[in-house]
């Protein structure tokens, strides 16, 4: 069965520092991979996605993620975070019709 593990429930970081949010998935077949962001009291917004091709995927708001098939990972990175990046981040994996979400990582950016 497919599963998605986000290794950190919370990541505190100072403003302008780099950040990496870790995500591992388990699957024996090709999957689609996604990162979503959820700001307080809002719905989820798609940050970026990997379907195939280049393993480095660039998304909105300066985020990027790298697909690593051998490590079954899809870590999210940003070289310099802002206060406004404070939110919950969800990694998701799935096939054609169904997405499995990780438990989320709370990114807290401090001044």
């Amino acid at each position, binding site marked *: 069965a497919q599963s998605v593990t986000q290794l950190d429930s919370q990541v505190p970081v100072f403003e302008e520092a780099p950040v990496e949010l870790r995500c591992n998935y388990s699957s024996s077949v090709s999957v*689609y991979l*996604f990162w*979503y962001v*959820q700001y307080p*009291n*809002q*719905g*989820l*917004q*798609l940050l970026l*996605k990997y*379907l195939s091709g280049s393993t480095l995927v660039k998304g909105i708001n300066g985020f990027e993620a790298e697909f690593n098939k051998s490590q079954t990972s899809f870590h999210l990175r940003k070289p310099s975070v802002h206060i406004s990046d404070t939110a*919950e981040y*969800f990694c998701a994996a*799935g*096939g*054609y*019709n*169904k*997405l499995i*979400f990780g*438990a*989320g990582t709370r990114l807290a950016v401090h001044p």
Partner: protein
Amino acid sequence: DTAVSQTPKYLVTQMGNDKSIKCEQNLGHDTMYWYKQDSKKFLKIMFSYNNKELIINETVPNRFSPKSPDKAHLNLHINSLELGDSAVYFCASSQGGSGAGQYFGPGTRLTVT
């Protein structure tokens, strides 16, 4: 323009009542979903409809009944509400499956007292 909208945004009701949540998308997508997010932020799919036909029905109590009158709408009706139904319910849509990315509504926070 709101891509995926849900009403109501907040819903407070008592145990045993029946309530509905409405969802509409104006993206022209052919697939719509309902998710439940619990108090620990865990997000789990409940249902998926493609062109008004049910394609995913996870292990959800029969008290939950989705209805899709057309491709742009997917409503969720809940009978005999229980305390454990308290959660945030998200509607989402996509075109041709999940590969293009699912677009989420703002959520409906349901509180059962």
